[in-house]
């Protein structure tokens, strides 16, 4: 095979026999095939949120924790610094606890994008997301959205970059009558809530843009202070799918975001998937 002068944007006739074979799935993709016996071992999951209390017993430690701080000079980029504050709300800890409960052996990372004021927070979220993708984390949980159209295009580009780098973005859907991002993008996995109590029940939505429904109502979650609080919101449904994604990727690390979404679809509770 001759050496390529250009990236692999086409497939030459002489290359057809040498192309890497696509993975062959079983005749029926079941939950047993997808995640049976998985603990999420070795999968890096990033929580882009209010920070995470890594010492919380339900979080069980962090592999890394950084914060995005506003630039020191006007016009400069926001800075990635070691996180000294931990969780400035409690919500990031809750999301981390949910992922840990489903994928106990995954590696959890925190990127704190809150705490420096609401003004300028869009830039911090973009910088934090870019950092998470650059780190090569396989799953990034985004229990947040922006309504600012200025950020939509930049977020869209980042979501596509993640998609091609095999980083799965799991974003909570907005249940308010406004345009918001990034959950509306086809390159991310968008999640709304169902009212059930089974953390391993998820439903494929035949009527997108919300693609999946996961547990998000009245659940006991880890919170700052070491205890738990009972919470409701789509922002808790997203980390359920993030945790389930970690389980699948631990068993099938070769999956692209597109293939992972297909597996989640084929093993959804309303597609016959059971725990």
């Amino acid at each position, binding site marked *: 095979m001759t050496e390529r002068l250009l990236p692999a944007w086409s497939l030459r006739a002489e290359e057809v026999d040498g192309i890497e074979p696509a993975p062959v799935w079983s005749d029926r993709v079941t939950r047993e095939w997808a995640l049976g016996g998985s603990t999420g071992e070795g999968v890096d999951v990033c929580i882009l949120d209010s920070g995470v209390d890594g010492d919380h017993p339900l979080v069980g430690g962090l592999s890394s924790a950084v914060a995005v701080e506003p630039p020191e000079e006007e016009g400069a980029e926001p800075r990635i610094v070691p996180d000294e504050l931990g969780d400035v709300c409690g919500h990031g800890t809750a999301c981390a606890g949910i992922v840990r409960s489903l994928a106990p052996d995954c590696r959890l990372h925190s990127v704190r994008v809150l705490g420096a004021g*609401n003004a300028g927070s869009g830039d911090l979220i973009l910088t934090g997301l870019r950092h998470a993708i650059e780190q090569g984390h396989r799953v990034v949980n985004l229990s947040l*959205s922006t309504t600012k159209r200025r950020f939509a295009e930049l977020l869209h580009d980042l979501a596509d970059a993640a998609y091609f780098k095999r980083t799965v973005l799991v974003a909570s859907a907005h249940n308010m*009558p406004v345009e918001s991002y990034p959950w509306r993008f086809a390159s991310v996995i968008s999640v709304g809530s169902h009212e059930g109590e089974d953390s391993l029940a998820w439903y494929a939505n035949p009527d997108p843009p919300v693609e999946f429904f996961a547990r998000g109502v009245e659940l006991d979650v880890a919170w700052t*202070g070491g205890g*738990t609080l009972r919470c409701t919101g789509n922002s808790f449904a997203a980390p359920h799918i993030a945790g389930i994604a970690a389980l699948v990727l631990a068993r099938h690390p070769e999956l692209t975001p597109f293939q992972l979404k297909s597996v989640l679809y084929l093993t959804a509770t309303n597609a016959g998937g059971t725990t």
Partner: protein
Amino acid sequence: MTESAYRAVAAAGMLATEESHRRLLQSIVGVARAIFKAKAASVFLFDEDADELVFEAVSGEGEGDLVGMRMPSSTGIAGWVLVTRQPLVVDDLSADPRHARQAAEATGYVPNALVAVPLLTDERAIGVLNVLDRAEVDRPFSLAEMELLTLFADQAAIGLDLLRAGRKARSVAEGGDDERAAVVARLAELLGEDDDGAGLRLLEALERVLRGRG
């Protein structure tokens, strides 16, 4: 303010008084409190200049002495809701010692259950609606209630936006320091003397250009 500027401002629907806007917001938090049979309901306005949240209306616990009190805009539960645009329902809140301490220091009232919804208008987050200690907190909060609350938040956002717009209009009328708004006010005044409509057509053309650019 001249007669023509007065007409222009009135035509833009910005002449309502601060008092009537406050009554509208007060009515909104009153109804929110009634819908959920809650001990209190409140609306925070996001003050962009100070980058803080300000209590604008309170019904129930804290009514009368919380209005005007300020909170950080991106920490705590209200800050998280403002930045992330996501509604949040949190019960057993008193189990979070930091929140309990902050709430006690700030308001003297520590709620045990909180529902917080962002107030959005177009692409901006302009505040947060809170419902504190709803009745029947032991009964699961349903998605139907969440939908009801988000619909209601849309109304609260309109009320809050009217308050903001009214203040802006008054600031301009009183010679406030917003340069762009002052230019618009001067143009509005000149339009009142624009007999042949040429100025209006020019401004409409400018509007199309600016919209195309945005």
